[in-house]
């Protein structure tokens, strides 16, 4: 059974936030990054499921973002995931949930995942869109 877990790397909320030069997002200077807390729950849930089902489960974790997200992927590999996929995208922070969902869909479409875990929302942007089990999201993204 192939399982996909989608995680996001977000700034530590203890950090001091300043707007970036363009005024579109926060400046990354002096920020510490970590795995989005809700996504950690998703990983934990997937790992627990694997513990129940045994070795038949193959657990892939995916993250979209710049080089630094590799650290978040390492962390969840240590938590018990089997393989990690990094979709290199320095502009990920500026993409809306629809675009992010489209990237994930493009990756996952032909991989035969039977189950996808995600966190409820991200701690930095908090859109809670593409993974939310609301009726409107039942239509699959392109």
């Amino acid at each position: 059974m192939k399982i996909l877990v989608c995680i996001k790397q977000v700034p530590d909320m203890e950090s001091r936030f300043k707007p970036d030069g363009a005024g579109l997002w926060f400046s990354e200077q002096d920020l510490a990054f970590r795995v989005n807390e809700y996504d950690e729950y998703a990983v934990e849930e997937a790992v627990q499921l694997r513990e129940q089902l045994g070795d038949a489960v193959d657990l892939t974790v995916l993250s979209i973002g710049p080089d630094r997200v590799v650290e978040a992927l390492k962390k969840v590999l240590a938590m018990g995931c089997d393989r990690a996929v990094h979709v290199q995208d320095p502009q990920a922070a500026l993409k809306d949930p629809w675009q992010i969902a489209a990237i994930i869909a493009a990756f996952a479409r032909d991989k035969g995942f039977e189950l996808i875990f995600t966190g409820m929302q991200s701690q930095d942007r908090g859109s809670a869109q593409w993974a939310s089990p609301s009726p409107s999201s039942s239509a699959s993204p392109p």
Partner: protein
Amino acid sequence: MEVSREIYWNVGHVVVLPMYLFAFAAIAVFIWGFYRRTSTYRLGKSLNRFDHLPQRFWLVARNALVQLRVLKVLLPGSLHSLFFWGFGVLFIGTLLVMAQSDFFDLLFHIKFLQGGFYEFFSLALDLAGLVALLMLGGLLVRRFIVRPKGLETIRDDYLVHALLFAILLTGFVIEGVRMAVTEIGSNPDLARFSPVGYLFAEAFRGLSASQLESLHKVLWWVHFFLAMSFIAAIPFTKLRHIFTATANYFFSDLSPKGTLATIDLEDESAEQFGAATVSDLTWKDIFDADACTSCKRCQDRCPAWSTDKPLSPMKVVQQIGEVAFSAPEANLCETVTSDVLWSCTTCRACQEICPVSIEHVNKIIEMRRNLSLMEGAFAGDEVRTAINNFEVNGNPFGLAYASRGEWAEGLDVQLMEEGADVDILYFAGCYASFDQRNQEVARSFVKICNSAGVKVGILGKEEKCCGEPARKLGNEYLYQTMAQENIETIKVYGGRVRQIVTTCPHCYNTLARDYQDLGLTIPVEHSTTFIARLLQEGRLTLTPEPFEFTYHDSCYLGRYMDIFDQPRAVLAAAGGRLSEMDKSGPESFCCGGGGGRILADETLGRRINEERVHMAEDTSAPLLVSNCPFCLTMFEDGIKTVGCEERLRAGDLAEIVAARLATTSTEETGP
């Protein structure tokens, strides 16, 4: 009159052949008894303890022959050592008899046990026997009548006491019986050189010569078989420590105190990190269990055991032995239990006092490594949070890493990244950087440096936790990650950093010793010795102001680094009058914060810091001085929970000194 005695008197030379046959049999049992244990030692991983041979033999001479480690605890130590020397002299005496009668006299007709030497020999053996007998009596009183708390008596103890008493007593009776026939009447001058034998001879005077001779024959064989039983029993009873303890001195860890094996985390073939079973430990860890004599000196000094926690270093060592010899496949951490393993503060009191040089702390850390790296276990949820905080922000508090250097605002301190030339790099550490109370210590240290004209640089937000608490909690991966980042940062400024100074003994140990394995070679010093040297060189002058205090030796400055005198000298130079606590110097009692415990809630037993605060209170000094951020934190906390704020304050050495700088007016820098 001949000044000697007839060897094999009464029993005759016919005994020689059966005697040697039985002796060889006893020695064969002895060798077999030890040999069958070696396969268990071999379960452990390899470790070279055969380097530096002269130093190793020197350790054996000091500790086995001269008994220096045994004598560290004076009363029971003296009983043991005097017994050992007494019994040793008797053993050597027996060998001399053997050498003369069955070798030199037999083959070359050389006799040396005569004349003045025989008189000396006779007197020395008599007194040695007496001393051994008295000491054995003392040990018997201690074990069976006084019964010190924690001293466990097992079958071996009854057996060994009975055997040794019987050997010594039959020896004197045989001597007395022989003297009653051969010396008392006919050679009284010689009898004077056997005063104890003389007393026994007097007791048997009433018997006829033939009665004495039959008694002598029987007792001679009884004594002989007792002695052979003793030899044969060595590998099978506690007596084995005669050889395993001696070997343990030889196999001592010669690396700097506190050295931990730096795991190669890049090793792709490694399937196990830390110790899950005995085979993940080294052979020396298993051998240690065989050297243990259950003297419980470690247990008596263990801060965890003293506060009703389940950890006894002695029992951990013995459990490793039990598992190795009975169920080598068993999960070691489950046998020892994680409550026991997480209770250790790595204070090293156990290892420092152990009379047979057992290494307790690293065994516990190896098992913690298994818990942490293989099982993902934590000492508690609060520790899980702290470890997460280290990963994200490089400090246990979870505070923004970018604010790490803010404690230094307004002080004459250079940020290394700004390119200034500095005399020292002050590695402040997490507590001095973020903890309000300990920021006072960092500021005090900078003021001291400023006053001495020492230019201080800091890494500020580039600094991360040194990794010590994580490492001691078994998380070698996190330790090495942070350590490597720190080392890379420091190396960037390599040319400008001639010396690193820390105010934290944990940072000090880690940077000075552990970082060497990862490539840091810059000299590292603790602020205490640095200040002591500034004073000595006259670069720093103080205006002494009298104060009463008691000094707490932190584990990592004291026992780990043997820094005991300099802090006391500095505090005396500041005008302090010291009242020592009950436990000080190498016997100091941990604050409870070491081994990563500073990050964990103390949920088992009583609180270690309160115990230490009570000891400080007992001195009636109003000030408890330490020089470790963990100690200061634990004491500030303990003073509040004990509720003795009115009578006792806690302060750091740097604060005391900073408040007495000759060049600046006394500021509100603390006590």
